[in-house]
């Protein structure tokens, strides 16, 4: 099918891949629980077909789109990206998807659109973590990008990984992947995309604004208030060797630096 053919359009990091079982067995997806193995254990209850994405706000063509309609006519590509979690571990993942820019072109942002706001599904019937009163998270999960970040060719909407349809625990059926930002920006199981004039509220920023900024660009110079961001454990590692590698500015995707020209990245963390 289409997902399998995506391998023909391939680009990205030339580093050894994190094995499939780790990419799909070790996840942060609090809608299914805060433990790393909770998503793999619990996400089978998620219904991903049919899937509707509401496109709203400053666009010429708002509406409720079946996922297939959003993807229609676009070529799926394989992109091998590093994923740097804000918790100081990282993976290398072969995603399959389409550039977000291609989808945005379909719905045509108006001249007023400055930001893209994303919302995840938050259905307590399908997602046990949403029922838990202890996460402190104000569901649904929300994320956002500046329009120029969203239009950058590296920004991907993923529907698969490792040549297969996206597993539920990885944010099926439709998720964002922004490889130069900490993993929490790459919002999963998206049901709503809204183009806005002002900066949208984002989940981790709402929860702890001193620790998680709107930009959340990977930056070894700016520590998390509670831990260092100067290096990361590349997974999988082993019991006696945590496999520390130095963290790179923008996670090594230096081509995005021009997006932030003139900005103080210590203040806009």
């Amino acid at each position, binding site marked *: 099918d289409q997902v399998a053919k995506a391998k023909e359009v391939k680009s990205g990091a030339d580093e050894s891949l994190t094995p499939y079982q780790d990419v799909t067995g070790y996840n942060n997806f609090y809608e299914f629980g805060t433990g*790393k193995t909770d998503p793999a254990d619990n996400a089978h209850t998620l219904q991903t077909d049919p899937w509707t994405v509401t496109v709203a706000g400053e666009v010429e063509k708002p509406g409720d789109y079946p996922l297939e309609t959003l993807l229609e006519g676009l070529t799926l590509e394989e992109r091998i990206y590093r994923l740097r979690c*804000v918790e100081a571990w990282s993976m290398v993942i072969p995603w399959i998807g389409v550039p977000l820019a291609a989808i945005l072109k379909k719905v045509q942002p108006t001249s007023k659109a400055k930001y893209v706001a994303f919302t995840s599904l938050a259905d307590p019937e399908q997602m046990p973590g949403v029922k838990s009163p202890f*996460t402190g998270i104000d569901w649904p999960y929300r994320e956002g990008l500046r329009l120029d970040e969203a239009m950058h060719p590296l920004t991907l909407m993923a529907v698969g990984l490792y040549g297969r349809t996206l597993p539920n625990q990885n944010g099926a059926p439709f998720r964002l992947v922004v490889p130069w930002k900490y993993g929490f920006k790459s919002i999963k199981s998206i049901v709503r995309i809204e183009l806005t004039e002002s900066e949208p509220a984002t989940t981790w920023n709402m929860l702890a604004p001193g620790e998680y900024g709107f930009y959340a660009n990977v930056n070894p110079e700016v520590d998390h208030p*509670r831990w260092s961001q100067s290096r990361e454990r590349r997974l999988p*590692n*082993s*019991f*006696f060797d945590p496999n520390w590698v130095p963290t790179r500015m923008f996670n090594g995707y230096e081509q995005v630096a021009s997006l932030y020209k003139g900005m103080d990245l210590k203040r806009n963390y």
Partner: protein
Amino acid sequence: MKTRYWTWLGWPLGAAPLAWLVLEAASGQLGPDPAEVFVERLGWWALVLLLTCLTMRPAAQLLRVPGLVVWRRTFGVWAFGYVSLHFLAWATLLLGWDPNYLGEELGKRPYIIVGLLGWLAMWPLAATSTRKARRRMGARWAKLHRLVFPAVILGVVHQSWVQKSGYGETLIFALVLAMLLIYRGLKDHRLSNK
């Protein structure tokens, strides 16, 4: 105090989580970031054992099973063992005793300092945990062993601070601790009014 034949069971009970954890580590069951998980779980068990240790006297009184009091020492000593391993595993497996990173973590991360202080508070308790020391010290022993309360409070603060979010476990730890402190406070109050 008359000891019961089953009181020795506390020792293997305290050892069981460690044995299980080592087995899991040896057989590669701890996932793609095993040292991190190992360190976290040791800390979790240290806190659970410390709270269990503190629950033993109220449990002995409320359940009228006086023999349970013996487990205070057993679980207290095990808790100290788990905290020590937690620190050693963190410094060895995750930081490799790298002086730069060790210095940075100890100097800049308040939750690490809080955890370290909690561990240090337990040293004199472990050192005076023998029956002989207890006899020798008399009333001073009970006074010294009140250090367990700052230790466990620091432990719960450390645990809550390490999390990114998700305060369910912390809430349970804090609730148990609060009940223990209230129970203890009521007891002391009653004793001083006698």
